[in-house]
């Protein structure tokens, strides 16, 4: 299990629509902001990388000292970004794929406006469960 992991879904307008700290490490108060900062900066990398491959899973795109940013880009250019310190590449890929499925289910909700914040607690619970499962 990763000690630190921060998962963010960024809409195609670069707006974060879902955030979750999914690591097991005792949370530093300021960590959320730092993680946000790192992930936000990694968008620069993603913007270059996303168009060079047809795969959705971009693997680790950026590295920040010990932390690694893995990114998964959906067809609608919604980006799932995970900041983590574990090396479990396969697990992260599966995690992304399962979250993608969850995300699509959310999109299918007629009351959910694409590009708006995902506030569903069900989604949150599921994502956290997936995180526990995979890393």
């Amino acid at each position: 299990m990763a000690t630190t992991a921060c998962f963010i879904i960024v809409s195609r307008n670069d707006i974060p629509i879902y955030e979750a700290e999914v690591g097991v490490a005792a949370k530093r108060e300021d960590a959320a902001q730092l993680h946000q900062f790192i992930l936000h900066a990694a968008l620069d990398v993603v913007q270059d990388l996303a168009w060079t491959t047809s795969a959705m899973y971009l693997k680790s795109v950026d590295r920040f000292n010990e932390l690694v940013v893995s990114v998964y880009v959906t067809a609608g250019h919604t980006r799932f970004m995970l900041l983590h310190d574990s090396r479990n590449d396969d697990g992260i890929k599966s995690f992304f794929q399962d979250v993608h499925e969850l995300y699509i289910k959310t999109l299918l909700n007629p009351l959910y406006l694409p590009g708006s914040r995902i506030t569903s607690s069900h989604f949150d619970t599921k994502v956290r469960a997936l995180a526990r499962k995979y890393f």
Partner: protein
Amino acid sequence: MANFLAQFQTIKNSSDRLVISVEDVSDLWPTVKPAFEARLPFKKASLNNKTRNPVLVETLPAEFILTTDSRLRSRFPQEQLLFWFREPYATVVLVTCEDLDEFKTILKPRLKLIVQNDEREWFIVFVSKAHPANDQASKMAKKVYAKLEVEFSSKKRERCCKYDMHFPEANFWEDLESKITECIRNTLDRRVQFYEDEIRKLSEQRLMPVWNFCNFFILKESLAFIFEMGHLHEDALREYDELELCYLETVNMSGKQRDFGGGERGDDQAAVLNPGNKALTQIVQEDSFREFEFRQYLFACQSKLLFKLNRPIEVASRGYSFIISFSKSLALHERILPFCMREVWVITACLALVEATTSNYNDGLMVPDIEKEFFLLLGDLYSLGRVKFMRLAYLVGYGTEIERSPVNSASLSLLPWPKPAVWPSVPADASSEVLDKEKLILQTTPRAKHFGIQRKPLPLEPTVLLREANRRRASLSAGNVFEIFDSRQGPVEGSGFDASSRMSPQKVHASSMSRTNSSPGNFDGSIDRPMRLAEIYVAAEHALKQTISNQELLKSLSSSEEFEQKYLELTKGAADNYHRSWWKRHGVVLDGEIAAVAFKRGHFDQAAKSYEKVCALYSGEGWQDLLAEVLPYLAECQKILDDQAGYLLSCVRLLSLDEELFSTKERQAFQSEVLRLAHSEMKNPVPLDVSSLITFSGNPGPPLELCDRDPGILSVTVWSGFPDDITLDSISLTLMATNNADEGVKALKSSTAIVLQPGRNTITLDLPPHKPGSYVLGVLTGQIGQLRFRSHSFSKIGPADCDDFMSYEKPAKPILKVFKPRALVDLEAAVSSALLINEHQWLGILVRPLNYSLRAAVLHIDTGPGLEIEKSHIIEMESCACVSQNDDGQGGAQVDSLNYEKRFERLTLDDGKVVFPNWASDTPSVLWVLIRAISDTLCRGSSSGTTRRESIVDGMRTIALKLEFGAFHNQTFERTLAVHFTYPFYVRTRVTDKCNDGTLLLQVILHSEVKATLTVYDAWLDLQDGFIHTGQTDGRPNSSFFPLIISPTSKAGILFSICLGKTNAEEEATKQPESILNIKYGISGDRTSGAHRPFLNESTGVDGVRQELIFKTAITLQRPVLDPCIAVGFLPLPSDGLRVGQLVKMQWRVERLKYLDEKEVSQQSVSLRKQKKEECLLHVRSLDEVLYEVNANSGNWMIAGRKRGHVSLSIKQGARIIISVLCMPLVAGYVRPPLLGLPDVDEANIRCKPAGPHLICVLPPALSSSFCIPVDS
């Protein structure tokens, strides 16, 4: 072989180009040298690369050296093999000869001797000294050259060329160059082959213990050097790459503990671009090299070649990864390296790389994508150097100067502290410095956050420095000091610098105490006592002074100003390059750091600009946590710069951020700032966009529905994002029509102050009448104090200034629907059947609201001509059960009638108006107006033949109604009702029988015209002149039949017996032309169905009393018509038609129909007028003669014969005679035919059968040739 390393190095350094030896056989070199050397360096030389593929080398530098030169002579054969790369690559043999014999005897053997050495690549240049004018000499030279060619050139290879000293042939130099190149190529191939073989041999022994990396290195580098000399840089680079791989393998593989290096003075400065930084002999270690120096050396060689290949971008990209990987190696050996050596090395390496690559970089020559990548690498290098520099600065104590922004915090707090074997301790003589530092720490107050934001500053350190430093030191001594220390630090763990600085007053106190107790020199680096922060700083500073050899870097760390300068330079470099590489997020974030420095220095203008960029990025992408960090700074700048609009906007943005990002107190501070500015004098009041803070929407549920021209009240939900109540002095809200954009948008205004509570509020606005259509909410504008604000109805889902957001916006829900004009009310006559004319009747007006309230409606009643309203102006109103006509279901109607409660009210008409009671607002009602239709004419009866339409038109009256209704009487409805009035009866008469005694039975038929029961009480007939009642009665029928009741629309008959009577002279004066039928009747009907009993004032009329009305009608009686006695018939005309000018015979037949006796003649004469009576009798006497007369229009007809005359006709019944008249039509067309009249016989007695034609057709005259006139004449 490693012993040759030094020699190898010097040889390599001394020779830098290919050598071409010159064998000067005939002492010609001094003469031709200038011409030969002018050809250097060679252009476009074709060489083979390592894979034996031809490569065109642009310029190939070379050097001509005489074989007699000492440089070539003094070499040992062994050396020659080892350092083969410096040996000549070609040998040019310069000869001349003017005599064949001489050639044969002297030159040829000598040349043979020279070229017998197979190792060398040689060729012969025959120099002809012969002047072209001298034919003899030229010929001889040619001959000798021919001989030479025969001797030395072969079919395979041309080895000779001829150089004419005076007039060189045009292609000589090309020939020479190609020959030299050929030689060089061959030599090169051979030597490369040799080195490769050698290297392969060595490689095979790699795993053997005897293997020596130095030997391998010398061979490999020799090969690389050969390529480099041949300007085959690609191949050279590949050799170095292989060398590096091989080296790393040996380093990693061998389990031997080797010296890493890097401990020497000056090693802290990276030598990544300087291969000659240290002599290789210095770094050699046993059979290999020290890693620290040698890896840098290899990289330097590679980058040198890359620069030669003009690939600075590759240098940058290889350099960046080299720095990263080398930094890792440094980290592994950090314990043996000087304090912070790694950080210093990275800084210097980054800066050196940046400098070298940018200076070698030609702007604009690259493909944009590659260029982008280059700037990205530069940005990365700058930012790497920047982070390390900040780390050093923090250690020295400039932590307060470093902005605690997310970027700095993220870079520094995740970066571990340096891990020296022992943390440096305070030098003995540094007590004053420690005091200074302590003072500095005390003086610096943590930067106050604006708006009193109480947020924990972000950390700049991975763990508390105090603890880390002491732990590193304590690990040497007894461990419990650390624990003691830890307990002291416990409560403020993780808070970093601020916490420790907050602690420092107590600690200073403690230390001053200790100073009094002990000697002043006590704290000079005793290991047992934990160091204080100031001591750590001073110790680090001293240690760094030891480490850093670069004066510039030292200077940058010498003071906070210098630090700031360098920090700014690095930050700017990184930001600029990130911007150029389109990594806007990286760039803009660093802009924010520049802004922070500018802010500190007081350059608020510049700071505001940069902060704005950062805020725009974060808010544009909706990263609110990060925005919340920067926005207060921007606001502060704007406040200082007195940019009220910007400041207000920033405050609004702060307020509209997620609520959990700031505490309520902070948010209240933002609001109070907004209010303070709003109520102060603003210089340039600009509308403030508060879309994100005050949002509004229509109420849930269906939109407000209004009818055309109706005003209303609109209720709107407004959300306030302010933490406290806020008073809006006025607001106005625009509505936009969805169907029609260009219509002027009307604003709804509310001038009263509205207090918005935090969260949801409902406000109501007056709505003026709107045009039909549906409307959505537009813009909310309003005023807070002096401040005008506006808000679009964006919800909080996303940032408003994002272009893409519009596409996600929910479709606007209409809030107001104004219907197209439709009938809101219907006015019609309640009763369709006729009312009694000339009587007071209730006119029912059915008022039916169509889903629209008629509260306080006013009805104007205006009567048309022939109609008047009764003077008492009484109006009765009652509710009406007859609901809408459109009710399809019978059931619905029944329910309505069941629930229906009858209401009744008596109203008065005031000035032609009547006001509706409230109960009549929604239900249909009937308004009963008392009116009277006036008709002066007398009703006329008719005989059975005539129609009765006339009377219906007479009874039509109109009444104009105008209803004003709606909340503000804004709606009007006008209608003119036609009301039908009628007499109660319609009378028809008929003589039923003509008795023999001359009595006529006159039957009067009464048709009931009304839907009411009529009761006839009495009826009498006032006869006209010439008729009398039989039996001298008054003409009343037998009264026992009365009262006679007539049901609605049924008939009744009364029979009068009259006879023709004479009149006397007196009566003639008062003679009446018509008979009058008088009927006394009563009526009992319901006003809801039609005619009814006339209304009487209560004073006069008593219920139950029989109300008798008189109906009078005029009847015209005519004398009975006599029987015809003569028939006139028109005989048919010839069938071929009539023509103008053609005679035609008209014929009439006259026939006596009855026998004409005296009595009848006398009776006949009664009908004649008195004055003609005598004459008539005269004619009658000659009974068998009839007077006839033909009347014709003389313009149409010419009559030939008698127009008037007597013809005899027997008096017997059936006598007949034919009267013929010749006529000639004069005009063509349809004309009236001539008519036959009998003047003596009363027309009543003539019967025309068959009747004459009305019009007859006359054809135009036939054409006559005599009228033809030739056209041409």
